[in-house]
């Protein structure tokens, strides 16, 4: 594949030559690539990473891949072509991303993954992810308590290509399935999407009017499900989400959704930038590639302290 590499390099050289207007004193560049900012979670990541990078004296290139692995691959090319010194990436698929991150590595650009894992080690410099299993267990335990250990429920699952969808579902079931009186009457993927969750919830509710609870793999789907339930006059249904968004916080404080699980997205993105900076400046890799950050249960007790994916003291 040497030929391709040479061609690509030649193409980049062309881009660089054309970009001659770039000032020579430009600061080092960090590329920040995440899924669509429509979901406030990813927006918080991008904002957190960008703020930290600027604070440390870097230029930033903020891009979104919309959960499209092909688009992600093009964005990685863009980052390499623009001479990024590091890539902060919330990726578009645990398997599909491995090759893209390898491509960046081969071009000498280290990747620092946040939020989602890839199914390989030694390719990215760091993979900093929320302890989704621990978080899911917290959410499920609260759900079990709210349900009083019995009743029919629905599970909304996230996007299948994302390890987090599976791990949260597993965390939920490892807790819930220990209670035989809790019966799952429907389990569907709404692909992390609020609108999709709304329409799925509408049809699930028609088929199963006797549900008592909904446990959702993320907050946007929880918002969609709750909106559908409210529209059908079923505000009594217990809804639990995952992420810790401001939207769900507001719903909890106004007695809508009952609970969620906070992922420290903002802190996570900032930590990734700090590690990237350490790598750029001191050639120092973090002690461990895979790093877990614990999640925190959010319910009526602490919801008012939640702001942009962080708990205030």
């Amino acid at each position, binding site marked *: *594949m040497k*030929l*391709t590499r040479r*061609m690509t390099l030649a193409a980049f050289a062309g881009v660089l030559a054309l970009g001659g207007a770039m000032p020579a004193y430009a600061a080092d560049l960090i590329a920040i690539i995440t899924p669509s900012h429509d979901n406030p979670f990813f927006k918080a990541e991008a904002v957190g990473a960008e703020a930290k990078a600027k604070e440390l004296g870097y230029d930033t290139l903020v891009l979104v891949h919309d959960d499209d692995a092909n688009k992600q691959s093009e964005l990685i090319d863009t980052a390499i072509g623009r001479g990024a010194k590091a890539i902060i990436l919330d990726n578009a698929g*645990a*398997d599909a991303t*491995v*090759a893209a991150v*390898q491509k960046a590595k081969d071009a000498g650009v280290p990747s620092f993954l946040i939020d989602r*894992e890839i*199914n*390989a*080690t*030694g*390719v990215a410099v760091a993979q900093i*992810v929320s*302890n*989704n*299993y*621990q978080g899911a*267990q917290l959410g499920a*335990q609260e759900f079990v308590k709210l349900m009083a*250990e019995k009743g029919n429920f629905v599970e909304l699952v996230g996007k299948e290509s994302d*390890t*987090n969808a*599976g*791990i949260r579902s*597993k*965390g939920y079931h*490892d*807790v819930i399935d*220990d*209670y*035989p009186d809790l019966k799952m009457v429907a389990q569907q993927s709404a692909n992390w999407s609020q609108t999709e969750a709304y329409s799925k919830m509408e049809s699930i509710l028609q088929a199963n009017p006797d549900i008592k609870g909904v446990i959702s793999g993320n907050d946007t789907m929880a918002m969609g499900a709750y909106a559908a339930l409210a529209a059908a006059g079923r505000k009594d249904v217990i809804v639990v989400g995952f992420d810790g968004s401001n939207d769900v916080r507001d719903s909890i404080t106004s007695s809508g959704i009952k609970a969620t699980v906070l992922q420290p997205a903002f802190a996570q993105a900032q930590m990734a930038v700090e590690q990237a900076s350490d790598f750029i400046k001191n050639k120092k890799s973090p*002690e*461990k*590639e*895979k*790093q*877990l*950050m*614990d999640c925190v249960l959010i319910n009526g007790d602490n919801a008012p302290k939640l702001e942009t994916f962080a708990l205030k003291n």
Partner: protein
Amino acid sequence: MPNKLTWLTLGLPLAALAGLSLSACKILPTPSAQGGGSDNSSAFNPDKRVKDIWASKVIPYLQQKAGPFAEVHALAKTDPAAAGAKYGNPKKQANSPWTFAVRVEGKIIAANTQSRAATIDVDVDGDGKADARVQIGPAMRGTAIRDSLDFVQFNDFTNQIDFAQFGKAFNAYADKMVLSKLSRDGLEGRTAKVLGAYTIESAQNLPLVTPAEAEIGPKP
């Protein structure tokens, strides 16, 4: 590769025409896409792996590391780092709370066997108040046993799913081998002797201990 003559006569103009000719390149799978050295998920059997190390590594490690609950918990409250160095897993994730190996010995003063996540509350210092809550299954929370072991690292697993399954397998094994055999009736007033682990959580709740070994004494 096509034969050399063809390549020489056709290859160059073709390459020039097509911009990049991949016709002579062999498509090989990217080695890293196969999980580079870590476990193959399909071959990963968490229950078997726990069974294989339980008696030979897990129990000896906890026996050697564990301190009496009152001592561990007092130190954990005043100096978590010191408690961690002595009773915790020094190779824990930097952002995770400490998980300590402990022995809980005392009198059962309350029991909740209504919930599937059954527990006993144990008084270890004889003041009549519960000091620790011990899970007795079958439903168990958390991954304290896994997290207490310094020879189990998240980095050694393909992803969180495998790591999670491994954590759950410890609880399931403890339940199958030990907890499911414990008596469930008239627990109050009896003695309990437990070797296990607990993770520092919020200060309001009783520390929740996950047992690896447990005995309940006869009725008084």
